């Protein structure tokens, strides 16, 4: 599925419906990747930072999520830019697919809308 996305750079609404709404973990992982390719541990650290320490991903949770998101076509493996210290060559890098980008945008819109409604009703 994601092969087709990558080659055609087209995102059908069916594909998008299949991945939306994003789970909070997927959402944060995608946000972390929006700045460019990352390796696993860097993703976990960035997610932790983004959520002010509320979401701390252990190795299993991290790669479990990465596996799932890869299968869903939200992310893909990226080539190792080879700039990261001692074990850099062994680390696997991940980047967002176009579907991932669209999904993140759609999810952000949805959350923003929901947040706006909430603020209106609360009168703030």
């Amino acid at each position, binding site marked *: 599925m994601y092969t087709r996305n990558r080659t055609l750079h087209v995102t059908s609404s069916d594909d998008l419906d299949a991945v939306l709404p994003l789970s909070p973990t997927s959402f944060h992982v995608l946000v972390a990747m929006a700045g460019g390719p990352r390796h*696993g*541990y860097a993703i*976990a650290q960035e997610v932790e930072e983004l959520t002010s320490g509320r979401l*701390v*991903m*252990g*190795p*299993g*949770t*991290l*790669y*479990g*999520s990465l*596996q*799932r998101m890869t*299968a869903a076509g939200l992310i893909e493996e990226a080539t190792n830019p080879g700039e990261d210290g001692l*074990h850099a060559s*062994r*680390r*696997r890098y991940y980047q967002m697919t176009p579907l991932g980008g669209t999904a993140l945008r759609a999810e952000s819109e949805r959350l923003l809308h929901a947040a706006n409604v909430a603020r209106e009703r609360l009168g703030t």
Partner: protein
Amino acid sequence: MKDSPDRVRAAYERLLSLYPRGFVERYADDLLQAFDDRRSEARFTGTMGGLRLVLFLLRDFVTSVPMTHERRTERRGVDGIMNDIIRDLRFSVRMLLKNPMFTLAAVTTLALGIGLNAATFSAVHGLLLSPLPGAEDPDELVQLYREWPGIEFGSNSVPHYQDLRDRTPDVFENVSSWYFEPLSVSSDGRTERTIGMVVSANFFQTFGAIPQLGRPFLPGVEDRDPGAHAVAILSHGFWETRFGADPEIVGHTISLNGHPFEIVGVSPSDFQGPVSFAAPPIYVPLMMADVMGGGSNQLAARGSNRMNVVARLHDETTLIRAKQSLDAVLLQLREEYPDFYEDQLDHTVVMQRDAGIHPSFADAQTGMSTVMMVVVGLLLLIACVNVANLFLARARDRRREMGIRLSMGATRSRIIQQLLTESFLFSVIAGGAGLALANVTNGLLTSFSLPIDGPWAFNVETDSTVLWFTVGVSLAAGFIFGMAPALQSARSDTATAIKGESSDKVGRSRASNALVIAQVALSLLLLISSGLFLRSLQAATQIDPGFDSPGNLLMASVDPGLQGYDEARGKAFWDRMLEDVSALPEVSGVGLTSSAPLGLGSSDRSVEVPGYEFAEGERSSLHYTYVSEGYIEAMGIDLVEGRSFARQDDDSGPPVMIVNERFADRFWGDQSALGKTVRAAGRDWEVVGVVETGKYNSLGEDPTEFMYFPQRVLYRSDMAIVARSEGDPQIVLQRIQELVRAADPEMPVYDVRSMEDHMGIALLPARLGGAVLGIFGLLGLTLAAVGIYGVMAYSVSQRTRELGIRVALGADRASVLQLVLSEGLKLALIGTAIGLAGALAAARLVRGLLYNASPLDPIAFTLVPATLLAVAALAVYLPARRAARVDPIGALKSE
């Protein structure tokens, strides 16, 4: 610990196998890399950090393992298993409905077993195991007793209690006390007698029970001035039944023992008081003790021990610390009041939750409840065996079905799963039915009234613990009776099974035979045990209690002190009663006693006998009662020597007493007791009569010394009238109550019954034991008979062909009958032998609960096995007769 990080890493690496293989193959390096990265973080270094890391990883595993497995399970796993289970359940329901008689028999059998277990467990749980309902942190509560030679759990006097309370604040947060007090309650023109509770002012605070309405008693205020705090707290139950749950009740006045009391509160609904077997309807403060007791001197009498003391330990205080503190108090008290503390050895501290009904019954309680749980456990086992047998028989019928399923590609585990689902469905249904049965039984038990007046309330209910117990028992039962048949079915040899041949019949019937033997043995064990109890009961009724024909001996208790009579008025009242009752034409003798023999209460007091030295630790405190003239005659107690009491034996002359033969033998041996002196209650008493030795506290007791003091010398207001009736006992009881009412219409009369009924209290344990075990034994017998019949009938039906051939070859019907009968009886005999051996062992265990009956009672050990064998013979005979009638031609054609 240098290598510890690597050990952690190695452990982590090994745990990776929890993930699906594909995931590990792809991500193992990354996972270990992430692990290394994490471990180097500052928060995960050091000892605490290491611990944090382990917890962090555990949490990670818990979330990620199911997540990574999910894809596979989505397709086949969970859904697939659920599908299988639903299909199995549907199939099981169909099977159950297809064979309604089978289902009914199996469910009833199992429900009986489960129900009795649940009921017995709720009784044991409610009375002995569960913490006191409504008490806050019941584990901090302890009961305090005083120890004297021969008395481990002695009660406390009011001054002693007050000293304990005031001198132990270092170990106890609160020290409270209580005792039962008979009350005459009047309100809205209605008077009734009940048993209330006199409690210290900090009683409710100690238990952490906050009144539903109003306030508790006030420590520091309502424990100060004797007689000045006429306030009362109603129990929740009494408030509802007697006052219609009137929300405005606080502030109202009721009359207790003739004195006005203001109601200041209603206890919370979940707090039933400090004991698990009674719910006192009314509480009054300790300072009112002397007012309630009709001029008694409870509050100041250091020697009058009737209070139970319950204390709450401080947090972190151990029993040992508490004990040390109490030891110190005892040493002080010995200095201060040498007369009162000479004998006291120690204090006994018992955790409230371990105390049960009363710590002195602890052994009997555990013994009895163990016996009961073992018995119902056995019964459940018999039921399970029976149901297993039914299932086994059906499994044989279903061999063909199983064979076909196996040959069609079903795995054996699928078939076992299917059969286990069936038995679990069974146990769930049976468990539900059993729970319903337990509820009914508990209802009966709760409404069961002791043959003694009082606010008895047994804390027996089906709470969540009982529910879990039942669920556990049901599932275990389902497993026990489901496993064996399931394994056997799955072992089926496909080819022969489809052909319908019974190639391994021998193995099958061996399993059935073992079950039959087990059943016979177990029910014999039960029946002999109950036989022993029944024989013991019979023996008990034949014990000479030391008085004549209890059926014609009538009793009624009255306490004019409850109505505020002082001693002079009380004496006049009792004189009038003696005259009026003896004037009744149906009454041939009448007397008064402060406590009739074989009741629950007994009094003892220490004596000195001039010329007799008590040995160290020898019991010098002996049982006694106060009686009027005429009592010895009315009871039909034989006078051995001297004379009985007369009306002239009052405090104007020298005090006289009567002792029993055992007393006379112990202190004066061969000499005559007449004219001898006994020092007791601060006076010297001259022995004027000796009577036969009877039974005073229990029918099973050894000969006990006993003293009779004249009621005219030592006045007590609460007495029982004892009258010997020559007419209809019920009419005489009626007349006596009318006479009391004629003397004072407000006077409550209680414990009105014949001596025979009164003795029921002494016989209660044996009666209960006999009845319960008898019912259980009969159930066991029925179950075993059904089991034997089922197995034999099935075996005959399986052997129709063989028997047909035998008949065709010339065997006569008698020899076929004999063949089948001897086979069945052989099983019964083996079972009987095993059961007898078990019963011999069990008899040793119950010996302590039997009255005068030998644990090797010949009747129980012959009659019961004979009965069982007879029943077994009948169960075997019916199928055997059918076998003998086999039509050879039909039988040969059938397969």
